[in-house]
């Protein structure tokens, strides 16, 4: 989308240039999703389609409430419904899935196209579609299985955290639409403070493991959850317990890059040095004569 100024870019994919640092006042924003208040109405899904002007093709139902059944290039958020048998209780855990806007984004780390993924100083991670080449590396980098590549235009899509709304002081469309105020939006500090109140309330109602999901393995996220069972995030339809960028991606996009280029350069330099010190391996006149002798010997 790239609706914020270039002054507001903190990181840019596949770029070696230093980002601008003159602006110091960046406020960290966050969306807080209070899973305990969600009624699964999907108003957020509708608002997301509406604001972002996306029209998903008519899908199918797989017999659950999950509809669509997964994130798609045109469905940037979906409600995931999980049934959890907690002793005698059946708990219906409903999680609004979508991009978590990691502070250390694996998608951005993996992306090979300069400027196709940016992270703004406020923490929002955004795909700049015009620069996307459709390689799918962001999919491999993401610890949350979020980006989706379109079969129509081979570009990657995901939640923008409504960066176009946020940049003019508005809350994301999903937060605006939520009828139970299960989705809050504001500064990350305020959201953490608000989550503390909610957690105290949940604990007083018997959810002794209630807590905030702001996973440190990815540097924290700019979309956070209040969970009744924060000790078991995976209860919520596969929310990772301890998300982090895969070590394979870390190696591939980390030490391997400079070491590989150095090895190739070394091989070239070694060849050049060998040639100027040892010289070429040439066939001498006497070699030719001996070859001829061998030929004649055969004839004799």
């Amino acid at each position: 989308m790239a609706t914020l100024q270039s002054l507001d870019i903190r990181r840019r994919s596949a770029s070696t240039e230093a980002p601008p640092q003159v602006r110091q006042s960046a406020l960290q924003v966050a969306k807080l999703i209070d899973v305990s208040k969600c009624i699964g109405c999907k108003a957020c899904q509708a608002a997301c389609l509406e604001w972002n002007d996306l029209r998903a093709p008519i899908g199918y139902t797989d017999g659950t409430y999950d509809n669509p059944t997964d994130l798609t290039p045109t469905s940037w958020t979906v409600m995931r419904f999980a049934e959890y048998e907690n002793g005698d209780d059946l708990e219906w855990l409903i999680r609004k899935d979508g991009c978590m806007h990691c502070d250390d984004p694996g998608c951005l780390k993996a992306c090979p196209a300069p400027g196709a993924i940016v992270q703004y100083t406020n923490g929002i991670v955004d795909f700049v579609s015009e620069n996307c080449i459709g390689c799918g590396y962001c999919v491999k980098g993401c610890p949350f299985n979020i980006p989706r590549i379109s079969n129509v235009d081979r570009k990657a899509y995901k939640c923008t955290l409504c960066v176009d709304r946020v940049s003019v002081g508005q809350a994301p469309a999903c937060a605006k639409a939520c009828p139970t105020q299960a989705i809050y939006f504001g500064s990350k500090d305020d959201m953490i403070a608000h989550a503390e109140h909610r957690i105290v309330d949940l604990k007083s109602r018997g959810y002794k493991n209630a807590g905030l999901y702001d996973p440190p393995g990815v540097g924290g996220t700019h979309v956070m959850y209040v969970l009744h069972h924060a000790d078991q995030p995976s209860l919520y339809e596969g929310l990772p317990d301890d998300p982090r960028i895969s070590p394979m991606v870390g190696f591939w996009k980390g030490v391997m890059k400079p070491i590989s280029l150095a090895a190739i350069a070394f091989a070239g330099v070694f060849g050049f040095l060998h040639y100027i010190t040892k010289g070429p391996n040439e066939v001498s006149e006497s070699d030719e004569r001996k070859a001829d002798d061998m030929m004649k010997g055969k004839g004799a």
Partner: protein
Amino acid sequence: MSEGTNVVARYTTAARINHWITAVSLILLALSGMALFHPSLFFLTNLFGGGQATRAIHPWIGVVLALSFAGLFFRFFTLNFWRREDTVWMKNLGKVINNKEEGLPELGKYNAGQKLVFWGQSILILLLFGSGIVLWDVYFEQYTTVDQKRLAAVVHALCAIGAILIWIVHVYAAIWVKGTLRAMTRGSVTRGWSWKHHRKWFRQEVEKP
């Protein structure tokens, strides 16, 4: 082999065409692959019409390379089996590098270094083809898990670097050992070259009726 000519036939026209298709596709693959591997080489995508085009065309060149290299493999693999003299040659690699080949065992059509290039590229191209299929999302996205794709990305990049390093050795050897390149450009080498570098092969050629 007749005494009238002073050259020895080394590669047929078909083998030469096969080799150069492989060579061109390997170079194009290295350029487009490196463009997507390191940000400071992304500019190489301009050679292929931009980032999207590079992403789209790279796997197709890979298919060309795989087929073409398979042709080379079946042409030459029987000549590349490891023999006792190859071990002796490798133990004397220092002499070879110092251009002092006297006293080394007589060699057939290929020396140990050439055989290692052959087998190295055979294994790496097989791995590159396999991991490349896993990474070719346009057609094969649905068949593997994301962790398998991550592993494929690492394997693909490592093997590509290995193949590029072997390619550098291969090209440098042709520059260093004079008289070699004409084998692949004209199909023949001089008698002296054959006698010096591949005497056992030369002897066999001489003894051909």
